[in-house]
């Protein structure tokens, strides 16, 4: 959510405060993910852990363009969105540690972060399933006249599943305010796009549903902001859904369990030249938005915030086993 001031910084679509806030968020996500990898190897985090390293600009740029009332649903690589939406860093880390103080009380873990108070309806771990939930939330928004756009993030892998096509068709035929945000990082888990998708450019898939679509440089945070804003305006004006394909690359394995035998070191190095954080930092310095030391301070503060988050998570308690039966049913059950 960008500040409402009209002024813009030269060469950028946003003013300085917002630009630096985006830089802060990207640094925070990067630091957070690096810390996660470390904590995972120390056995503090278990289960599946999918890192967002390399893709930070997508969550940060697109969420900056949204209003607080807009709905967000994501796939299981969900730490970045949670932090960009302003969930407490300590509580997110505590969730990964499975602690009582975690955002979902230790019940969800890495793949199922959520905060209903921020209209963040969660990370989902069945590929493409949440696209349909997004369609439903958008229907509710329209039906209840709430002027909310529902945004779902998913990977290129999700576009080959049935739920994707059912969701795209329903959103289009019901003319709903949905942004389908496809993060094309070239691999569905460990399988390259060309082996599993009939088309390489995901945006083409929107054609079948007569849905406007665009490809965006997912390593460029301000472009993500601008293009998402365009799509949001389209949805808000009642013109129906929009499809964005954000071109990106995952710098780390699919999950911590991934030995990465399906891609060459050279390829990874080549894409690391497009690391969204240094790219943005260089532009900020070049355009004289901020000096190097100012950005370094932001980076350092992010690191400290993550260190504090790890400490908070580590010191938090495990959930009470007496609560195991909570939240299975919302209404009481009286029979034995």
């Amino acid at each position, binding site marked *: 959510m960008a500040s409402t001031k009209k002024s813009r910084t030269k060469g950028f679509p946003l003013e300085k405060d917002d630009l630096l806030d985006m830089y802060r968020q990207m640094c925070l996500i990067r630091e957070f993910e690096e810390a996660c990898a470390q904590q995972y190897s120390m056995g503090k985090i278990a289960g599946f852990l999918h890192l967002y390293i390399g893709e930070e600009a997508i969550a940060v740029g697109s969420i900056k363009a949204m209003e607080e009332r807009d709905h967000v649903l994501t796939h299981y690589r969900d730490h970045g969105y949670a932090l960009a939406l302003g969930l407490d860093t300590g509580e997110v880390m505590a969730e990964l540690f499975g602690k009582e103080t975690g955002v979902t009380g230790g019940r969800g873990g890495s793949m199922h972060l959520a905060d209903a108070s921020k209209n963040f309806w969660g990370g989902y771990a069945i590929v493409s399933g949440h696209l349909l939930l997004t*369609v439903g939330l958008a229907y509710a928004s329209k039906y209840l006249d709430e002027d909310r756009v529902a945004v779902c993030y998913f990977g290129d892998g999700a576009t080959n599943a049935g739920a994707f096509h059912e969701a795209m068709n329903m959103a289009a035929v019901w003319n709903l305010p949905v942004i389908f945000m496809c993060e094309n990082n070239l691999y569905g888990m460990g399988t390259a796009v060309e082996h599993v998708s009939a088309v390489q450019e995901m945006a083409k898939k929107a054609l079948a549903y007569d849905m406007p679509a665009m490809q965006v440089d997912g390593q460029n945070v301000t472009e993500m902001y601008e293009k998402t804003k365009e799509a949001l305006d389209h949805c808000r004006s009642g013109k129906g859904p929009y499809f964005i394909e954000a071109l990106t690359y995952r710098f780390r394995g699919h999950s911590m369990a991934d030995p990465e035998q399906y891609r060459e070191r050279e390829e990874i190095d080549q894409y690391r030249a497009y690391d969204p954080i240094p790219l943005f930092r260089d532009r900020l310095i070049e355009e004289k938005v901020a000096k190097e030391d100012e950005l370094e301070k932001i980076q350092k503060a992010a690191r400290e915030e993550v260190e504090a988050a790890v400490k908070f998570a580590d010191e938090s308690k495990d959930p009470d086993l007496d609560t195991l039966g909570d939240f299975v049913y919302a209404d009481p059950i009286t*029979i034995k």
Partner: protein
Amino acid sequence: MAREITVRDALREALREEMDSNEAVVLMGEDIGAYGGSFVVTAGFLDEYGRKRVIDTPIAELGIVGSAVGMAMGGMRPVAELMTINFSLLAMDQIVNHAAKMYAMFNGQFTAPVVIRTASGWGQLAATHSQTFEGWYAHVPGLRVVMPATPADHKGFMKAALRGNDPVMFIEHSLIYRNRGEVPDDDDFTLPMEGAEVRREGEHVTIASWSRGYYLAMAAAEELASEGIECEVIDMRVLRPMDTATVAESVRKTNRLVVVEEGWKTLGVGSEISAAVQEQAFDYLDAPIERVGSLEIPVPYNRQMERAVFPDKDTVVEAVRTVLAKDINTANV
């Protein structure tokens, strides 16, 4: 005051009353609008409530349930209709992995109170349109699964489901829509979605069933009563949470149990009831529990073959005779 109406009209009344009293209630499904619904439950609703509230969906069951779950999360009260329970298999992921998990997985932050209406049943429709899957859903914590028999239960459960906060699998049966029964004259009539009901008292044997099976049990009980055999008939009504205590209590009196279901017996609902009863009333059983189910084959089209697959009144009568003839205290087991 009460009136005698059909199961179909009980459902129509429940849906209409809840739509009238709550704008958030909408109906969605294949051919529920212009066509009027495959089982004519929603005929006329489109004209009355319009396209915004009576939504003809694409033939895409996963999409129907998934979008309904999202609508429920967003503050609406969708009734997602799946034409038959056979097609609900296409929506399994949204029912089991999404609707049933929403409340617990996110630590109670939000619920997905979606009502999924679907119909079991058969009638020379061959293998993929004649199946019985209530047990599959009753297996899943987080779902409420009702499979009512009487018009009053259909109405009371539907209204309760639309006022409750949990996802509900509301399973109807295509062969009992015309069955009649008394329903209270009260726009606020709801029934808690739990508990089995003893519908007929008897001392010799307990028959537990639900949905159409309940009517078979009652018909069998009538016939056996003329011979002096008194059956206690229990309508299970709700399969999750399941009230097996009422069955066990009845067995403590009759000492014998027959469980009647239309599904395959192997790993079926009857297996669960039998296991629960032996846990709760083992010492009271005078004979092995008799389970009635359908033949374990893909259902054939031919009328005679199909008839031979599903239990009918005579199968139930025979099962009662079997359970009465056996006695674990004597040598004839």
